[in-house]
């Protein structure tokens, strides 16, 4: 059984990393129409060739994948078929009148008073929820609500082609004994240390317990040089989301002296043409450390510079 030493980097319990990105998602015809109809306060469903109706509308039957023959307008009333409470919010399954399926939504009532089979009715949001399904605030108990009917969908709105969406994930990554020591050394001593490969003197960067190639245990720690050699490099001349530096600059994979594997970093340049000549595989470079306080990250090295011969 693996038993890691209970070591932690000094003052660096975990490494926070965030992945956050904008998206433009396409809902497809059925959901696109449903969402487009939210501001009109109409609930759109799908009718299948055998006459069954499901709501909210789907392009494919969740039961067997069949395609619907028409979009319809579903009523705002139905029955509660299941319920729970998560983080204080009551969520339930609702079957709208005239529909064969159920779907999840907020239930606007205390959990204690709910029972399966209760009549419910949609409540529309007072605020502007745009084309989100949350334009329906939820379903409230409506014991006396008359049975609603599915009707034809008159003059349906054009389906939304794209909706804006974002996803953000936060991570607190463990350093472990190897990365922990490496980043401590970077922060406290301004040096890059790796561990020797299992069968030689060169250091693996980043360090780890087991050699990537031989799958044998790695050796002792070793400080790598402040200088190194470019293995591969390209001149970045385009902007992409999430980029830390403004182009143009050089993306370089550098083998530090005494190391066997690459470190990924950047080299500042004046212009494309001179960089093509000056910076190439084999070019010698030197790490330029930050003037500010070191944080224990790769970016404590601000950049690399070409060593003029």
């Amino acid at each position, binding site marked *: 059984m693996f038993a890691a030493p209970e070591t932690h980097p000094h003052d660096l319990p975990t*490494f926070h*990393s965030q*992945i956050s*990105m*904008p*998206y*433009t*998602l*396409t*809902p*497809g*015809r059925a*959901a696109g129409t449903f969402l487009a109809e939210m501001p009109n306060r109409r609930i759109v469903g799908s009718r299948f060739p055998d006459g069954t109706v499901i709501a909210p509308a789907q*392009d*494919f*039957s*969740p039961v067997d*994948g*069949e395609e619907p023959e028409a979009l319809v307008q579903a009523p705002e009333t139905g029955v509660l078929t299941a319920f729970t409470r998560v983080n204080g919010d009551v969520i339930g399954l609702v079957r709208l009148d005239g529909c064969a399926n159920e779907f999840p939504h907020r239930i606007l009532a205390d959990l204690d008073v709910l029972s399966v089979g209760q009549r419910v009715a949609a409540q529309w949001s007072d605020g502007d929820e745009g084309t989100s399904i949350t334009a329906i605030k939820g379903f409230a108990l409506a014991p006396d609500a008359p049975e609603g009917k599915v009707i034809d969908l008159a003059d349906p709105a054009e*389906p939304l*082609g794209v909706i804006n969406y974002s996803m953000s994930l936060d*991570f607190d*990554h463990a*350093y472990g004994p190897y*990365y922990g020591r490496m*980043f401590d050394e970077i922060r406290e001593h301004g040096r890059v240390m790796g561990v020797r*490969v299992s069968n030689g003197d*060169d250091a*693996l960067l*980043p360090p780890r317990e087991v050699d*990537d*190639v031989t799958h044998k245990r790695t050796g002792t720690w070793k400080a790598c040089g402040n200088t190194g050699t470019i*293995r*591969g490099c*390209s*001149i*970045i*001349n*385009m902007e*992409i*989301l*999430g*980029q*830390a*530096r403004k182009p143009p600059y050089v*993306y*370089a*994979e550098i083998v530090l002296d005494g190391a*066997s*594997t*690459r*470190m*990924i*970093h*950047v080299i500042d340049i004046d212009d*494309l043409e001179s960089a*093509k000549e000056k910076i190439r595989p*084999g070019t010698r470079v030197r790490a330029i450390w930050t003037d500010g306080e070191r944080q224990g*990250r*790769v970016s404590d090295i601000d950049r690399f510079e070409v060593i003029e011969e």
Partner: protein
Amino acid sequence: MGREVGIVGVGQTHHSRRRTDVSQAGLVREAVNRALADAKLSMDEIDTVVVATGPVLFAAVNQPEKWVVDAIGAQGKSVVRLTSGGGAGFAGALAGYYQVAGGYSERTLVVAYDKLSEGQLQYSISTLYDPFWGREFAVGIMGFSAAYWRARMDVLGHTEEAAAMVSAKNRKNSIANPYAHVKKEVTVEEVLNSKPLCWPIKLLDVPPISDGAAAIVLSNEKLAHHSTTRPAWIRGIAYCCEADNAPERSLMLSEPLAIAAKKVYRAAGITNPRRQFDVVEVQEPYSCFELNYYESLGLCPPGEAADLIASGATQLDGDIPVNPSGGCMGANPIGAVGVIRLIEGATQVMGRNESHQITGANTALVQSGGGWANLRGCAVLSA
């Protein structure tokens, strides 16, 4: 290799820069319906399904096969997802191959897709990098790919001009491909003069960003005749890797591809690839990679890829046409590309390729891959 496994039906979407009329799930359905129709089968006659896509961050749906299952009517079936970056589709086909070859199923549907218009492509690929080590300087996969092309220029002579010839060839071939969405002939000069993005990679060395899906039906020998009289039999298929930060990684020849080729050629009885293959389909995420594959697949010795493309041998009328379909330059829905290349190779040996049927094609080589150029595979198909 185990039992005979054949590709008996194929289908792909008409790929496009952005499909705003269908969801991810709807896109997958189109390809599946076409493949089933092509194989003269219904979903009821499929035992198992493999779904393959690129990384989750491409389109913000985690384990998307669990949503897609509804759109393809595969509820209740054995459904599993494979993912392997750019090579996801190929990795999915490989898993499907073993489901049939291992007797777990008689017929397996493999569908692969990506709807790249929905996300931020290069930024999501940057998250491939270790968050501690390198991600802050990552430039998608393009910065990396260009860096090692630059290194191969010096060692192997993969010049900008040679790569430009690849791009010009593939873009020209795409024009006849009914499923491609970039159909514009370019000259070698135009490629060389296009805007540097991550030099040496320039705008016209880069394939488009696409929405697309592709599906194949795999069948065992017993049932194959229900679908076609001329299946594309998989004579060998393998997908190998190397540790991303291994000291011994040369990034000159692709070692994992060479290892995969050795396994596959042995299984398929290939001893002289240049002469024995009638047609080759490769996944070139940038033009420079096609040169790398020529050498790694043994179509020419190391250092001679530039000569091979210059000789015209890999053109449509050459002795070993590569990417008659136009490859990725016509359409590049990344996760689907491995299956698209298999489809293009399969239809060649089935005698019904829709772009450029190579006359008398009987044996095809298909290549695919992903990651940091460290996941690489190939397959041999024949009638």
